[in-house]
């Protein structure tokens, strides 16, 4: 390709002098920042003074979160099934109920969130994460769009609603809590996102042929409830980002006092034994930063500290080894000549 001023056919002598503008001459007004020592030190200090307080506040918020984590997958296996865990969990005749006690370490103020935590469960596995049909979930007219749901797409030619591995593997352990015989109410309404119940999951879509195959993957659904009211499913279908994840089970709207002993009645139905997964019950308060996690606070303190340190370093550097800005004697050709 040739970029040039092409003469027109008869070589007319139109003036081809370029039109002068600041743009074509690359002389547009511009801000030319140069980071002087003052600016460098100021920016390091500014970051330090911003980051250290944020770090402290975050750390403080995380410290205030009270969290009970209780792993029950091993403890809830009756001793007689120790050698045949898979057989126990897959059988529909064994008694899965399991009763345990946990102690509240500190006072927990409502709202208190009940989560289940799965470890080593790859909800982000490529085979798994694609195995769903959002069209089908949204409206009854999409019932037959089961593309991508294999191998849980159809049952004897009829579509499975909701199809796919994600829905099929719905988590189905249940918890009920009580303190000294007094049942703690776990509110399971409103645990899913509003956007999901209102838009993403249809109010006219009812489960069909669900969990009716030979291999049961997890929980069953109430066929008389539309999908947008099946909040456990909705929560489960928001696939987790990481192989260790929590999912909201319900909310407790009353305070728990320190040293309260909570009696947990578990239905240990879900099979994590076949792949070495772990199941945990989590009861936790939250803060503005989310759950209990010191990472952000520590990270901010570290970055702030490094910046403070760098600011000091640069102050020392500028004091002990100053260099006047724009001093031509530092130009390489001038340095060479002075050496000669």
């Amino acid at each position, binding site marked *: 390709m*040739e*970029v*040039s*001023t092409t003469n027109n*056919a008869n*070589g007319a*002598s139109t003036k*081809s002098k*370029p039109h*002068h503008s600041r743009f*074509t*001459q690359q002389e*547009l007004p*511009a*801000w*030319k920042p*140069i980071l002087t*020592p003052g600016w460098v030190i100021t920016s390091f200090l500014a970051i330090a003074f911003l*980051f250290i307080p944020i770090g402290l506040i*975050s750390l403080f918020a995380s410290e205030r979160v009270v969290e009970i984590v209780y792993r029950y997958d091993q403890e809830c296996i009756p001793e007689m099934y120790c050698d045949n865990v898979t057989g126990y969990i897959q059988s529909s005749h064994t008694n899965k109920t399991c009763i345990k006690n946990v102690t509240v370490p500190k006072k927990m103020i409502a709202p208190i969130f009940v989560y289940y935590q799965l470890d080593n469960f*790859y909800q*982000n*596995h*490529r*085979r*798994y*994460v694609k195995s769903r049909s*959002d*069209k089908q979930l*949204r409206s009854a007219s999409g019932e037959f769009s089961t593309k991508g749901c*294999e*191998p*849980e797409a159809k049952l*004897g030619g009829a579509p499975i609603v909701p199809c796919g*591995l994600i829905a099929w593997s719905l988590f189905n352990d249940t918890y009920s809590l009580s303190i000294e015989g007094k049942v703690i109410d776990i509110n399971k309404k409103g645990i899913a996102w509003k*956007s999901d119940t209102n*838009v*993403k999951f249809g109010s006219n879509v009812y489960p069909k042929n669900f969990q009716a195959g030979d*291999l049961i*993957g997890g929980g069953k659904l109430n066929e008389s409830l539309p999908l947008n009211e099946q909040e456990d499913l909705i929560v489960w279908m928001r*696939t*987790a*980002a*990481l*192989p260790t*994840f*929590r999912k909201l089970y319900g909310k407790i709207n009353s305070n728990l006092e320190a040293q309260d002993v909570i009696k947990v009645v578990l239905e240990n139905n879900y*099979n994590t034994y076949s*792949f070495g997964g772990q199941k945990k019950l989590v009861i936790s308060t939250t803060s503005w930063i989310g759950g209990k*996690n010191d*990472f952000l606070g520590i*990270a*901010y303190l570290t*970055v702030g500290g490094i910046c403070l340190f760098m600011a000091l370093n640069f102050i020392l550097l500028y004091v002990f080894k100053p260099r006047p800005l*724009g*001093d031509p*004697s*530092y130009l*390489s*050709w001038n340095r060479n000549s002075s050496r000669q």
Partner: protein
Amino acid sequence: MSLDDAQFVNGNSQQQSVGSVDLGSKRVSHGSRGGGADSEGFSMSMSHRDINDEDSRLIYVNDALKTNERFEFAGNSIRTAKYSIFSFLPRNLFEQFHRVAYIYFLIIAILNQLPQLAVFGRGASILPLSIVLLVTAIKDAYEDWRRHRSDRIENNRMVSVLINDRFQLKKWKDIQVGEVVKFSADDTIPCDIVLLSTSDPTGVAYIQTINLDGESNLKTRYAKQETLSRVPEKDRINGLIKCEKPNRNIYGFMANMEVDGKHLSLGPSNIVLRGCVLKNTNWAVGVAVYAGSETKAMLNSSGSPSKRSRLETRMNREIILLSVFLVALCAVVSVCAGVWLIRNEDDLEIMQFYRKKDYSKLPVENYNYSGVAMEIFFTFLMSVIVFQIMIPISLYISMELVRVGQAYFMIRDDKMYDESSNSRFQCRALNINEDLGQIKYIFSDKTGTLTENKMEFKYASIFGVDYSGEKINIDDEHRGYSIQVNGQVWRPKMKVVVDKELLQLSQNGKNTEAGKKIFDFFLALAACNTIVPIVVDTSDPAEKLVDYQGESPDEQALVYAAAAYGFMLMERTSGHIVIDIQGERTRFNVLGMHEFDSDRKRMSVILGFPDGTIKVIVKGADTSMFNIIDKSVNLDIINATKSHLYSYSSIGLRTLVVGMRELGVTEFNQWQSSYETASTAVMGRVALLRKVAINLEKNIEIVGASAIEDKLQKGVPEAIESLRKADMKVWVLTGDKQETAISIGYSSKLLTSNMTQVVINSNSKMSSRQNLEDALNTYGGPESNESSLALIIDGTSLVYILDSELEEQLFQLASNCAAVLCCRVAPLQKAGIVALIKNRTDDMTLAIGDGANDVSMIQMADVGIGISGQEGRQAVMASDFAMGQFRFLVPLLLVHGHWNYQRMGYMILYNFYRNAVFVFILFWYVLFTGFTLTTAITEWSSVLYSVLYTSAPTVIIAVLDKDLSRRSLMTYPQLYGAGQRNESYNAKLFWLTIADTLWQSIVVFYVPLFAYWRSDIDGSSLGDLWTLAVVFLVNIHLAMDVFRWTWISHASIWGSIIATCVCVIIIDAIPVLPGYWAIFDLASKKSFWICLLGIQIAGVIPRFVIKMFIQHCKPSDIQIAREAEKYGNVMELSGQEIEMNPQRR
């Protein structure tokens, strides 16, 4: 046109100028074989080969049917457009997929369509490729539409064609070979036409070839005597023309014509070419011989040569490294995936998130599982698809866009606009812009490049007397020489400064011996040429100007000089000339002319004087003239002339020697018969004519010598000084004599008086070797002061040195010298010298020249620059860049070259970084998904990342950002060293960038990972966080490196951040995507904002710290100059700099 390798007033230089280097064809050998004589001999055989039957075409005049009967010759419709509506899609796609990058794209897209490997949805996988294809296709379609339009206009122009014995208007596209065409003054010629007759009774037609070769002066073409009296309408011409096959040599044509049983020979002066314009001739009639795509003009309109820039070559090396990274990443992923599968093999069936078997069908089969080995293989391919942007395909497109932008600014730079020739800078090659910033060697032609190639008559030495005394400007005394014609005053268009004494002698001293010689001298100047006087009207009706049109500026200068001394050429036809000698009009018959050729290096005319005497007048280069001058008489005069010539050439003047001899009747008759036989010969005509000429041109009596000044172009000494300060080595390669070359060297400040000159003039290989060894022993030591040595070497010595083992010694010697001057070099030797440097160093070479003789060197050098000046356009056609003046080299290299290089270097590194950081983020995530290549970032965001989220700022900053102002770069040429030292792009910077990339990807990925570990965050939300974080970070990274913030830079950087947010929001507002509403949920959490802020700061801190540290402790020249620009006093700096510059001491 004057070629300085001949340094001769060449009568008909056409044959010689292209001969040495056929335009466009790559016949440049590395190094020069044989030298001048050989290359010229070679050229003669090329342009004047005789026609064999098998490579000729037969044209029956005025019988297009019969002409096209046997072979279908091309019609005259031209087609520069590449595509038609139907062929556009397939052909354009075919051409686009010639690029390796696109094929990579395509293969990835195809792989993705296999169900086993479907990483992205169909739409998302094809999108990037289709965007690129679409943009390119639109660009191509637009260009092609413009070509279609101009083709249509061309094809539908009208011209008169003889049909059924009447001239009728016909469209250009319908003209066929063999038809007789008539065109009038100022008409553009529709195809290549052999002239039959013209309005001029002698059959002369004047044409302007500006569209063909850029020369604005008129050229004469002749109709043959035998056809010019025929009136085609009444007197049907039945002839047969046998001519060469179509070729691209615009200065050569070879044909025979048979009319009425007579054999005539046709040459380049009998043909007019498509694109030329008829001038000063009322009409002309001719027969079409080549039409349409076979015309010489169309054959020559080939594209510019394609070169690859140094930076791009280096970049490709790093791209190979990146592909190694890519393969490594993919290997890691697939091996890990394999290990994971083997470890969990027993559980795969029941694992809820794997479910190996499909129970819905009987018998139960594996679903999408083909065994561990196949899964590993698929994983590998899938990871190539996911990590594809590790190879920055968009970089190639960005580079093209950036180069177009840079070219736009170079073309529009008013500092590189030449007012005198009304020419802008031209970018003919679009892929080596950044090479302009890394030049180390400059090879320059002299005539027309350093000098203006506008000749001015200075001195004369007539019969041993030197007239270089007191000068008067004619304006002072009277209004120059003028003559009265029909009551009108005619005067020459250009005034010449004359010598008072010589003027008086020429006017009054007719009867003295000296006066007679002066008469002979000026008569020779006025007669022995191919100049055509054209009478031009002025505003005063009583006054007319005589404009001497000719192809050689030297000849023009001589004829104007003769006119100023009272020998005014008034009329020239093929048979006679009229010269007004001191007011007395005299008619001379031109009995014959031996045109210039570069073998003889002289021309001669045979004039019949009014008194019946016949003289041969010869004019030529001194070396060739002194061989044929009769040394038995006037030896003292010959010696005096020689010493005058020496003194003229030592002050840089171009010299010519004039001689003449009276012919006796028998000798004349002898000559005439052999001349006629030779000029109608069918075989070996050229050689025969040359033999005739050599026989005639002997025992010549010396008349005198002339000296013409070729003025230096404006600003050349300053430009050379700037380039030298920028540590570039300037070599001048010229065809001129050594003395002339040295004097130009001094006046252009290439040589200075305190330099030691090492001169190598040898006549044999032995002496060349001896000379070189002596010079190396004396000056070759590493301790010698480079700035004080100048090497002067001539073409004869180069014959023995180039392509032999002596090359190495020459290279060593030359690299110790500050200036190198090669004189008397042939065109191919010029290329040989460039190759000498190019093959031995890594340094970039640039060749600049204006003439056909520079073409080989322009094509050989890394960067070729053509001067669009006085000589033809071949140099421009072969060049990568073209400009009007030598001094524009300074802004081109120091300013634009520096910017281009810095911008491009930064852009490449930034592109590597920008894509790699994204790939690493994807890679880290893969480690947490059971190595199954799930991406948390939505597929649309991954696709749009390099296409939309981060692309615009890259290109815009690379087009607009300036590290230093034009003023600083021009004031301190040394700043150019940054490019020569590869400061903007090198292996160290690459590895630093990769390290920075790793750190930033780790920050972007792991901060959210740890912050949300064991939380209830879903994949889409975390993906959105990663998307936004990485886009913000790469844009902030760019913002940190921007030197100049114009509103456009602000708009592009902040604009793409906003565009990204908008896109992410739009993607998350689509209910059928799994990530519906994720960004809104995420943005309502404070932890998201804290993560985002923390990532940005933590990501850039290492880079910032290192940058600030280097800036303070090891500042680059550019950094200092930038600070000086803002805080320092530029004037004060420049004073100090001159004082401290070591080269100036």
